[in-house]
Structure formats: C-alpha cells, structure tokens
C-alpha cells in the first residue's frame, strides 16, 4: 500500500502536466488565428503570445487590438 501523501503528490503532478498540456493546446488554437489578425492589423504577431498568460492572456490581446490605433489602418465605417 503506497503512502497516501506520495499518492497525492503523484496525482497532483500528473494533473499539473495534463493542465499544462491542455493550456498549451488551447493557447495554440488561439495564437495561430490571432497571430494573423495582429499582422493584418499592423502589429507584431508576437502580441498573440500573450495567450500563453493563463487567465488574462485573451483579454490582453483583445485590449491591444480593440483600444490601439491599427498601424495598418482601420475601417472608416466605424460607428456608422
């Protein structure tokens, strides 16, 4: 019978690895299209790497795109 503490530590390590893998996969699914959107907006594609920040990464990228002047130009039909 294994020590309960060791069992918990092992379970925790596996859970952590699974969480990291899931997070990386999810971030990758967001980074690829966002990289292209950032490039089209005139920003560096590296801005999309903020998706790697857990929790608030998505909001950072959205805020950059939403509240900055796009270097590549914006539509003139805003607010119409």
């Amino acid at each position, binding site marked *: 019978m294994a020590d309960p503490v060791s069992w918990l530590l092992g379970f925790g390590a596996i859970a952590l690895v699974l969480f990291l893998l899931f997070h990386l996969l999810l971030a990758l699914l967001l980074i*690829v299209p966002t990289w292209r959107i950032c490039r089209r907006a005139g920003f560096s594609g590296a801005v999309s790497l903020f998706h790697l920040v857990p929790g608030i990464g998505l909001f950072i990228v959205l805020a950059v795109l939403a509240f900055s002047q796009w270097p590549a130009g914006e*539509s003139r039909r805003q607010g119409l």
Partner: protein
Amino acid sequence: MGVEIAALLGFFGVTGFFAAVGAVLAGWMAWRICEKAGFPGWMGLGATLLILTGVGAIIPFVLLWVFAYMRWPRDDEFAAGHAGAGGWSPAGPPAAPVSARGLPPVAGPGGALPPPPRSLSAPAARFRLVSDRMSIDVPTMDGAYLVTAAPATTAQELSIADPSIGTPHARLMVAGARLGLEDLGSAGGSFVDGARLLPEHGPRDISTAQTLRLGALEFRLERS
C-alpha cells in the same frame, strides 16, 4: 450546514460575477475589433456572447479562425483607394489606369509612362533619402517607382546597389507633396520610423515619416 451552503453560494456568486464581467469586457472589445475591420460591431459581440449559450466555446473558436482568414471590408476600402487614417490614397483623381490599390501602375520595361494627373492639390515636394553611405533623390514627377538592387533600366526604377535590397524591394509613390511606400515582400524588409511595413499593409503614406529602413540601410527622409 448553513455555513457550507452559504460558502458555496458565495463561491459561485463570485465566480459568476467575474464570468459576467469577463464576458461583457470581451464582447465590448470584440465589438471594437470588428468595427476596425469594417464589420458591424454586433457581430463581434454576438460571437462572444455565444460562449454563454449552450453551444459552448467551439463556435467562437471557429468564428475566430474564419475572421482571421476571411477578407475584411477594410481591405476592400483600401483596395478602392479610400484609405483611412494612416492609409494611402493619392491626392486628386487618377488620370492613368489604376492598379488594384488605386495607384498608377509601374511601367514595365519598354512600357509607356503613366500620364501626369489632371490636377495636383498640392505643390510638388522633393524628397531625399539620406544615409551615411548614399543620398537618393526621389523623383518629383508623380508616379510609382520601383526600388530594386538591380541596375535601373527605366525611369520608374530606383536602383540601390546593396545586398540587403531585394529585386524588387519596395515601391515608392509620389503624388504632389505626398510620398507613399509599399513593401513588395522583400527579405530584408521595410521599416517606417522603426515599424515594420509588411506587403499586406499595402501602400502607406510616409510623407511625415522621419526615418526609413530598407533592408540593412537606414535612411533619413529629408524634404526640400
């Protein structure tokens, strides 16, 4: 027992509050991003709020990918020559046949020069690209000029003999007192005031720019 229930309700209450704030923030920002790209803002808001429905997050994911790779109305506006702030559109009505981006086409070897515009809204200005090694006078005649490392064979080509310059590298456009630049996918890249200009950005107005980097060559943009 009552304490545990209260704690659970409090936990889910706080979680729900943050989820609601996050959804509203994301919806607001998606609204602005869609408007900048030329779409109605409600499309971004609607796509974001789909997360709250039973459909789950898969639909917004798909929509994000579609948004990234589809053609934006902003691109069509620029293609029609109605560039917004920071974009480029030549002053005055074009007299010559125009390219897809509303600019006079560059005449190829042996091709006819584009005729001058019918009217100029601003007097011609002389631009000069000055680096430590060379000084290049940008032609004052309206038109598009190809920047290339190859020897110039026509009046529409500006030759810069440097290994970091592509063949062709970029296109300079002169329209009265305005100067435009379009990168043509060069390996060395084009930079305006330190910002990378990509081919998908199209022609940009650089009349007020201070520095220009073509490949490894750093130029000051001087006017006279």
